[in-house]
Each structure stands twice: as structure tokens, then as C-alpha cells.
């Protein structure tokens, strides 16, 4: 049987709950949007049930060590094809085994889940590293990003702790939603009217606070000044800071030439 769900994490956990309750062994678990009609396989849509999701979640959490608790969610956020089945088997194993299985790298499902999780966590880390805020006229620090996976939920707490006294907006251009922080609460937002370029998040100069361009230029020049020309190693630079992040970096995008001194 193919089980379909709404492509949210809660939806997926609800599917797992149903499997246990009705003793179904699914053949595949798919987001409904990814489903293509097949003739001879039975399918069923499982609606999201927050209560069920919560129960699976709590049971699972209790069976994982603190260091591996983030694994199921981050692996899920990878959105990789068939991550659902690997996760499903991962969970079954977790529920069956006597000790926490998160570190059992010899098991192919655990390994696959851990690897997906790692890729997602790495992308989350890259957002923490490479998100760049620009100060707008209305005093909001704005960071456009375009992560490969849907990682914003994983990093909000970090920005919230760090930039606790400033208004900021981190916006995922690819998924068209973001988080706005008003120095008290983080709010999920989706902007219908955009005052920025939806490809690279750049903001018109007159929308930016006066000193903004200067800071970008100074940062750019700073990065140049500390480079040791005798040791150029562009490959290494790209390896640590892949090209796809560059358009958001003042030190790389070259868009800060607007500031003339």
C-alpha cells in the first residue's frame, strides 16, 4: 500500500502512527503532490493529526540519545526521494531495539538517515555562517537566503539569541517565506509585495539605511586586506564557501560598488 500525506513533518508522523495502529506495512510513503497514478497499487491519504504526531514524536524522542534527537526531523527536511521509507524503518528499529539506535552506523537505514540529516544540518550551519543582514530605512535588518533545504526553522533560535535587541527578517527566497523578529517574538511571514529582488534579495539603495553601503564596502575591503596574496587558494575558498552563497555576500557579489568614496 502507498500512503500519502501532506508533506509536513507532522503529517509524516501521523502516517507512522497509522501504520502502527492498523498494523500496515507500507510499500511507499509519499507526499500527495509527488504521487503519480498507478494502476495496481492501493493508496490512501492519511490526514495530519497533531495529537498522533505528538505521540509518535514523544515515543521516538525517548528512544534517542540527546545528541541524535535532531536526526529524524533534519533528515526529513532533506526532502530527498524516499527519505520517508528510510525514516519509517529507522523509527521501527528505534521502537524495537533495546538500546538507542541512532549511532548504529552499520545499519543501512540508520546510515542513510544520518547522512541526510548531516547534509541538512550542514546547510543549516551554512545559513548561520553566510546569512548577511542589511539595514533598511525602517530599521529592520534584512537577510535574504536561498538554502538548498528548508532549514530556517532549525536556525531561528540562533538568530533570536544572538540578535535579541534588533528587528530582523530572514527570508527564504526559494520557498517564499521567512521569519520576522520584533525583539520579542519570532513570527512566520510570507510577503505578498516584495521590495527586494526575488532572485538575489538585493534592496534598492534608497530603501537602505544611509550607512549600509559603507559597511558593505568596508567589509568587502576588509576581506581583501586580510588575504595573503602569496597564498591564494581559490579552490579551498570555494570548497568552504560554495559559489551558490556568493550572491548574498557583500564581500563576493560585487554589488557594493554603488558606494563611491
Amino acid at each position, binding site marked *: 500500500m502507498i500512503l500519502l500525506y*501532506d508533506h*509536513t*513533518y*507532522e503529517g509524516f508522523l501521523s502516517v507512522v502512527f497509522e501504520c502502527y495502529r492498523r498494523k500496515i506495512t507500507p510499500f511507499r510513503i509519499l507526499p500527495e503532490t509527488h504521487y503519480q497514478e498507478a494502476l495496481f497499487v492501493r493508496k490512501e491519504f492519511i490526514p495530519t493529526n497533531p495529537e498522533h*504526531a505528538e505521540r509518535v*514524536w514523544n515515543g521516538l524522542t525517548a528512544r534517542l540519545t*540527546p545528541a541524535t534527537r535532531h536526526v529524524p*526531523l533534519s533528515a526529513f*527536511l*532533506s*526532502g530527498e526521494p524516499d527519505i520517508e521509507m528510510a525514516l519509517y524503518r529507522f523509527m521501527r528499529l528505534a521502537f524495537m531495539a533495546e*538500546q538507542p539506535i541512532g*549511532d*548504529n*552506523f*552499520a*545499519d543501512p537505514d540508520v*546510515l542513510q538517515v544520518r547522512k541526510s540529516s548531516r547534509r541538512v*544540518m550542514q546547510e*543549516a*550551519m551554512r545559513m*548561520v*555562517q*553566510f*546569512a548577511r*543582514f542589511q539595514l533598511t530605512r525602517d530599521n529592520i*535588518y534584512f*537577510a535574504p537566503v536561498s538554502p538548498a533545504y*528548508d532549514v*530556517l*526553522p*532549525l536556525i*531561528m*533560535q*540562533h538568530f533570536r*539569541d*544572538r540578535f*535579541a*535587541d*534588533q528587528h530582523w527578517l530572514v527570508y527564504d527566497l526559494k*520557498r517564499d517565506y521567512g521569519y520576522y523578529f520584533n525583539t520579542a517574538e519570532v513570527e*512566520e511571514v510570507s510577503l505578498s509585495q516584495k521590495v527586494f529582488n526575488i532572485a538575489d534579495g538585493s534592496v534598492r539603495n534608497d530603501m537602505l539605511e544611509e*550607512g549600509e553601503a559603507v*559597511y558593505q564596502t*568596508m*567589509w568587502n*575591503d*576588509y*576581506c581583501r586586506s*586580510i*588575504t*595573503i*596574496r*602569496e597564498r591564494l*587558494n*581559490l579552490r579551498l*575558498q570555494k570548497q*568552504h*564557501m560554495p559559489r551558490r552563497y556568493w550572491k548574498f555576500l557583500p564581500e563576493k557579489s560585487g554589488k557594493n560598488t554603488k558606494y563611491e*568614496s
Partner: protein
Amino acid sequence: MNDSVHEKLKILADAAKFDVSCSSSGSSRANQAGGIGNAVACGICHSFTEDGRCVSLLKVLMTNHCIYDCAYCINRRSNDRPRATLTVQELTDLTIGFYRRNYIEGLFLSSGVIRNPDYTMERMVLVAKKLRLEERYNGYIHLKAIPGASRDLIREAGIFADRLSVNIEIPTNSELKRLAPEKDHQEIFSPMGFISNSIAENKENRRKLHRVPAFVPAGQSTQLIVGASPESDRQILQLASGLYDVQKLKRVYYSGYQPVNEYDKRLPVLQSAPLVRENRLYQSDWLMRFYKYKADEILPPDEPFLDLEIDPKLAWALRNLHLFPVDVNHADYEMILRIPGVGVQSAQRIIAARKFSNLNYGHLTKIGVVMKRARYFMVNTDLRIPVSGMLPDTLRRQILLADKNKKATQPDTQLKLFSFPEVLPRALPESSVGYKKTGVV
């Protein structure tokens, strides 16, 4: 912020670039209500320069004027260079402006010496103080302690900074006196000892009493210049090992001497900085700190210099073949860690995974062990190549050959060690189903 700050920043960042310490790790400072910033335990690289180095901190000199004339230093007073000084206010604004934009983890402030050590140190401390008290900034601060500055100033610096460092630069006192006659080791080790005692004392006090503010919570570090003077690697590693054991330093940095001031005949003539040597020293340092190797194991008394062709871990294994092969399914962690091709992460995974089943070749590859190298030094359930029959030289040749065949080998620089941490900052939340937006596009 204006053009003059911009120009000064260029000069003073350029002047600071040979200071290698880029790490902002080791401190974990929570943001306080209404404040800005936190220092995250693992450190975060926010950019990478074209030479591939991590940019984590605003690393800048307060001034590049200097009353001293150290032979190996670009800022020595006899050099005719553009000079600049940033004011306390300018440095504060720059740090905050960069920090709020997520460019940096914090400030690393060093300086040439103007007027006298106290005058210089006092202004540096003022920057840190202003950041903490006026800007309520809780991000990372690393201050260079100026040798010769008064203890009161150093104590104050330690209250506001996360890390302090006193650079040794030249590994032996006699060489230091030759290249920088106005300096000596005593002047450097005295503040270093004072700082490490104060850190120990502070730790003790904090155990007994709550609410004692932390003193230099990210510890102390130093830098050694390699290749400007003739010291051997063994001398350098012995010194470093003492600094870790006795002075309880958090990090020792090694800076391959980048030829400057070629006119000065006291300096060696080099085509370029000794990068491979620098890298081997970092690897050795890594082994001492994370793999529990002793300096004497890395370089025994009859071997003054590190092998530039192979890394120190492999070199040790080849010298100690009688301890191999190691049985990965039974040996203890320390010994597994000593297998060439097994890193800290793989070793931990081996220990974790072998509880579930005996490990074979396939498992180990998946775990991340570099089997091409490791297989000569281990046994597992389906691999039993006896290494004991092979002579060290044969083995060495074989491994080197295998490395050469690997096309596009990773350029061998110290930078590999500085690759960004694989763990996320602690501040990241544990996952929860509490939020709704979990759809994947």
C-alpha cells in the same frame, strides 16, 4: 563611519593579517536581556578569504605605529609604511556594525606599541569595556596582552575579554634577543603566567561562589613564528607541549615565516613561507591535543625535524609497527585513534557501532575510515592482512604511491584543520514538532 575610518581599516587589517589565530571557539557566553550577541562554543566561520582561510573575527590592529623594531615584523619602526590608528569609538562602532550584519563572531584586537605598553594596553581595554558595558555586547572578544603592561590592566582586560594572548613569536630566548634585542622571553612569560594563574584562581572561586564573573573564559593562546630563526621542530613541539601542560594554554598557533624585511641580514633568505612545515606542526599539535600523543612520541630525541612527506601520525605508526595491527572490534579507543586513516569521528563511530555488530570492511568504509591507508594497520572481521611482515620503508613507499595515484590531491595546507566545525552551534534548538512550517519544497 566615514572615509577615514574606511582607509584606516584597510591599513590596519592588512597589518594584522599575519596573525594566524582565527578561531573564536572555546567560549560560550549567553546573551543577556536587552543585549546583543552571544559567543557560541564551537566558533563560526563567516567567510573565507581567497587564500582559503576562515574569517571569523574582525582581526585588526588598533595602531600599526610601533616604538619597537623587531626584525621579523612588517610594522617595525624602521619601516617606511602608511600608518594609522583607530580610536576607541571607531573600533567599537566597527565591531558592532559588522556583528549586527552577521559578518563576524567578534573582535580580535591587537596593536603595535605606542608611547609605552601601559598606554597601549589601556586603550585596548577601553574598547572591550565600551563594548561590554555601553553596547551591552556579549559576542566574542580576543585581546592581545601587551608584554610590559601592568597587571592591573591585564586583569581588567581579562574581565572583559573571552581570550587573551601573549605572542612568544620566536621559540628560544637567544634567538629572540638576536632578532628583537628590546624584548626577552621573561617579559612574555611573566604576563602569560599571571594570566594562567588568574584563570585557575578564577575557576576555583567560581566553583565556590556563584556570581563571580568569568576571567578569560576562552583561555589563553600564543603564536610562534616558524622559520625566521633556526629552531628545530622538536624544540618547537617541546615548547608547545610545555605551554599546554604547564601554562594550560588553549591554543598554540604556528605561523610559517612570510619573508618580510628582506633587507635585514639577520633573517634567513626564503622564497616563500614554509607552508608544509607549518602544516606538519599543526598536525602534530592536533595529535598532542586531541589524540594524546606526547611531544617525544612525535619527535624522539634523535629526530629534530618532522617528515615533510608524510604526516606525523603515519610517521609514528611506521616507527611503532610492533603495536599493529589493531583489532578494531576489541581495541580500546586510544589505540583505534592511533590507526592512520582513522579520525576522531570515525573512532567514535567505531566504538558506537561495534556494540551492535562486529565490524567488517564495508562497515568501516561507510563509517568514514580511509581504508586505503588504515588497512595496513588494522584487522576486522574480514580483513586480516598481517602488517608485521612488512618493513616500515616498504610500507611507507606503498602508502606514498597510493597517495600519488589519487588524482587531484587535496592541497596540503594547515587550512584543512580549520575547516568549519561539523557540529551546529549549541544555540540551535532541539527539534520539536511545535512549529508548523515543515513542508518541504
